[in-house]
């Protein structure tokens, strides 16, 4: 994943497949970056995510819980239609702002 920090905003560009197998590694990298940068806004960018199941929901929910401790906000950006659908199913739109990607 690629990480970009600008002032109070930390952007994490997730890549590849987010499932049970890959979620643990992603979680550790994101948490490490958040703990180091202490952002007031965490943006998870999904433009290069090719697949996600509910393990990805768990990943997002876990990050949200951690951010709550510092009052930081969470944004999910460039969600594909299928990923947007599963996030909405899980009610993630109540926890984070969600933006769809541009249809290619």
């Amino acid at each position, binding site marked *: 994943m690629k990480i970009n920090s600008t002032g109070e905003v930390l952007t994490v560009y997730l890549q590849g497949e987010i499932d049970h197998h890959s979620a643990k590694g992603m979680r550790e990298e994101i948490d490490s970056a958040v703990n180091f940068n202490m952002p007031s806004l965490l943006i998870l960018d999904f433009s290069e995510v090719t697949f996600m199941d509910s393990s990805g929901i768990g*990943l997002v929910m876990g990050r949200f819980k951690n951010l709550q401790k510092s009052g930081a906000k969470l944004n999910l950006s460039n969600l594909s*239609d299928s990923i947007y659908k599963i996030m909405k199913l899980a009610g993630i739109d109540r926890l984070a702002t969600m933006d769809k990607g541009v249809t290619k």
Partner: protein
Amino acid sequence: MEHNKFTLNIPSKSCNESFARVTVAAFATQLDPTVEEISDIKTSVSEAVTNCSVHAYPDKIGTIYITCEIIKDNTIKIKIRDRGCGIEDVKQAMQPLFTTGGEERAGLGFAVMESMMDSIRVTSRLGKGTTVTMKKKISVKNND
């Protein structure tokens, strides 16, 4: 579409979750699914197979038995079976957000399967294992 079938037995290693969903998706392509239909099938298979890794065989690697069939009405039937610890209360396990898997598990695997497939049936026996059977009818395209 003619009847067709395949069987795949794999160890419940997490690296096989991707392999399982791609294999079932590849088999489903003979029904000419839409991108959304394939995505729904891949995600549902991923949920069921992950349940085997995380819940059925929590402390060891067991075998996941996958059977896929093309049945009448352009329908794919996917059976994912394990010989793991079994589910004590299937109804409770299928409730959205219920999980025995700890903090980072969303408890939404069954909810996703129910949403993305036309039907799902779960049978289980404690100490014996669990079988998840899902069906999805693939829309027939009108080719001009």
